[in-house]
């Protein structure tokens, strides 16, 4: 088996691509399973996840959150993340889908 790439690409439903470190992406359980090198799915082999039901704006925010989470891991007194209210419902759905 080839060694898994260090970075993975997330693709939104409307075609935006986001490149994240693998560890950051794997904060989402869904993504981590998707990218698990032991499963033989195409995502795991290519390192590219197409998330068809998430629009680019939301995925951007999701990626922002993933990075935010990674950065502030194991810390207290972290400043809140800026979330525009118009996005919150969609974000919630995406969070449910990605199991973050």
């Amino acid at each position, binding site marked *: 088996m080839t060694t898994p790439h260090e970075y993975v690409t997330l693709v939104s439903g409307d075609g935006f691509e986001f490149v994240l470190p693998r560890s950051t992406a794997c904060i989402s*359980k869904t993504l981590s*399973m998707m990218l698990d090198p032991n499963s*033989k*799915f195409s*995502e795991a082999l290519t390192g590219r*996840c*197409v998330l068809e039901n998430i629009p680019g704006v939301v995925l951007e925010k999701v990626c922002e959150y993933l990075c935010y989470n990674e950065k502030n891991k194991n810390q207290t007194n972290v400043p809140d993340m800026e979330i525009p209210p118009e996005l919150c*419902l969609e974000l919630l759905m995406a969070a449910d889908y990605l199991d973050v």
Partner: protein
Amino acid sequence: MSMRARQRIRAPRRGIPASKTDDFETNWADLSTSLKKIHTRDASNLSFEQLYRNSYNIVLMARGEDLYERIKKLEQEWLDAEVKTRVTAAISSSLLLAKELAEVQEQANERREAGERFLAAMREAFEDHQLCMGMITDVLMYMDRFMSTDHRKPSIYAAAMALFREHVLQSPIRSDSKTKVVDVLESTILFMIQLERSGQIIDRVLIRHCVYMLEGLYESSNEEESSKLYLTIFEPAFLDASKKFYQAEGRRLLETGDAATFCKVATDRLAEETERCTYTLSSSTESKIKEVLDKELIASNISEVVNLEGTGVRQMLDNDRLDNLRSIYVLSARVDPKKTPLTAAVQKRIVEMGKEINAGAVALAQTPAAIPAPKKTSTDKSEAAKRPAEKEKPVNQQTAAAIKWVDDILGLKKKFDSIWETSFQSDHVMQSAITTSFSDFINSESRSSEYLSLFFDENLKKGIKGKTETEVDSLLDNGITLLRYVKDKDMFEAYYKKHLSRRLLMKRSVSMDAERQMISKMKMEVGNQFTQRLEAMFKDMTISEDLTASYKEHVKKTGDPDTKRIDLDINVLTSTMWPMEIMASATRDDVQLSCIYPKEVEGVKQSFEQYYLGKHSGRKLSWQPTMGTADIRLEFARSNGKIQKHELNVSTYAMVILLLFNEVATGESLTYTEIKEQTRIPDHDLIRNLQSLAVAPKTRVLRKDPMSRDVKPTDKFFFNHDFQSQFLKVRIGVVSGSANKVENQDQRKETEKKMSEERGASIEAAIVRIMKQRKSLTHSKLMTEVLSQLSARFVPDVNMIKKRIESLIDREYLERIEEDPPTYGYVA
């Protein structure tokens, strides 16, 4: 947040463009083909996201339950159709002979191969299933989350595993047969283990994987720890098989009848089972299988092994097989913290060896006594010459026996100490067992106290010459260890006192430091009370030295002009502290008239008495000539006219006798009766002293007529001017008077009588002490208290205590208060 709350929240956009989400059937069709692809290992073209989205959509459509059921059905069909056939195909007919063990080698080989094939198939099937289900579960995660939280259903993974159990393991291997796949699996693994136990090499990894499978499957779908198939099915069967195997093994090993082999095999088996549990089976079984081993192989056989004729513990002890002993100890310790059979065997052997030592000492003590007896009848001249030598012998022989006894015991003790340390891992139970057996056999030898005291005596007199301090220390320590075992410590005290007094008075002790060291060691070991009197003896010695010095001073001051005065070196002893009976050895004589001293000596004696009584009024001095010595200067007129001078160190009595010859002209003689009349020395002492002066070969200061060993009242004694010695100073010991020796029968009786009197007194004292404190006490309680108070010194005889109580009641120290239970009261 309040600022934001005012803003309108846009409803999320419904749906995703270009998706066929709305239709459950389309989604399912997609999903099911993909799942089948996963099973056939064709997943690389599948998009996880797509599958995930499918199941996500289905769940969003609130058809999650349908999906769950359908997947279950799909899996079931797959297992039934594919996996089961594959597994059952691997079961060959030879495996079905499962129940009876294959004894023929060929059959075993065939069966083994078939078994390996089957296990491999099994393992492959399960691993496939596991892998696929892992992937499927991943894909269906969204459903799982939904189902298990909202509907309390087991995860699809667990459900699929349960399906595997039902449809593969618990399905019959043939449609017409009752044997299930799992039964075959079980018997096959057991067979493999059987093979390994009999020394063949098996594919451990394979079995390990099958065991993993059993461990991963549960009896019911709620996955309780205790309902693992491994625990419910395989483990009991395994333990049962092992039990039978080890029962048989135990019997077989006993038949070969070699304890060392047994230990080795048992130890190996233990290690083997541990290894098996780690590498082949599950580590959770380790404790259980060890229990089986302990019970079946070790516990039920250990006592027989320990007692095996010729190879058992006895043999190991005799031959110092420390490693074997250690393994047998380890085995015993596993099954029984008390290690009963082993301790019993060790104890038995110690007591046996101890008895041998006892018997050896007795034999050694008696042989020389037996030999001279018949020779007395013969009158051969050459033998007569030998006699003096023989006469010394029995005494020394007895002493040697005593010392050999102590040395042997010390050797034995050392041996068992080292065994205890190296083989028994310094186990406390073993230690106390060894200690009790030592004290058992030491106390079974009635002369042990005397022997031990003799041992000390010998060592303090001669043994420690030229030894370093540490050597002396360890020597004394060894002795003290033995003392610890001796129960009748008062007996030992009496003997020790006796020997000590001889050493002190005759200045035989090599080193006073060693003596003091000894006392302080005993003090630590046995207690203050024990050494009190011994210390008092030392004190008397020091006081006497001062006294002698001050007396000399006194004499100088009074200005006695007599230059020929006799130097007096005196020891004043407190009669209660010293064992007087050994000095007044002539107690059986009815009336003891004191000896008549020559006038020179008498003068000194009176002068000292005067001086002493002047210092301490109200004391009574009694003189003990048996214990004293004197230095005298003698002139021997040789027949060639020369005069030879010798200084003799003799006992007080011998001095008195020799001084008599001052008055006797050369060539004249004194008969025994004459000497006796003139000196009033008791018969017993006189005979001994005359023997040492006239019979002992090197110290014949007197000539005796007739020349024979026995002294008769009519014998004549002459001063021997031809006395020859290469030394200027000669020491003449009194025959058998002062040597350290084992007591003869009479003396023993005497000591014992005295002992029991003393014990009676201490028992009475203890009773009175206790009663004074308690006022009233029942008989049994009084008994226990007395016993515990006295146990440090000796083991009192119960009858003796009873008698003492009676006597105290007679003398109105105690009274009977009640009859039932018998209770005594203290009469103030």
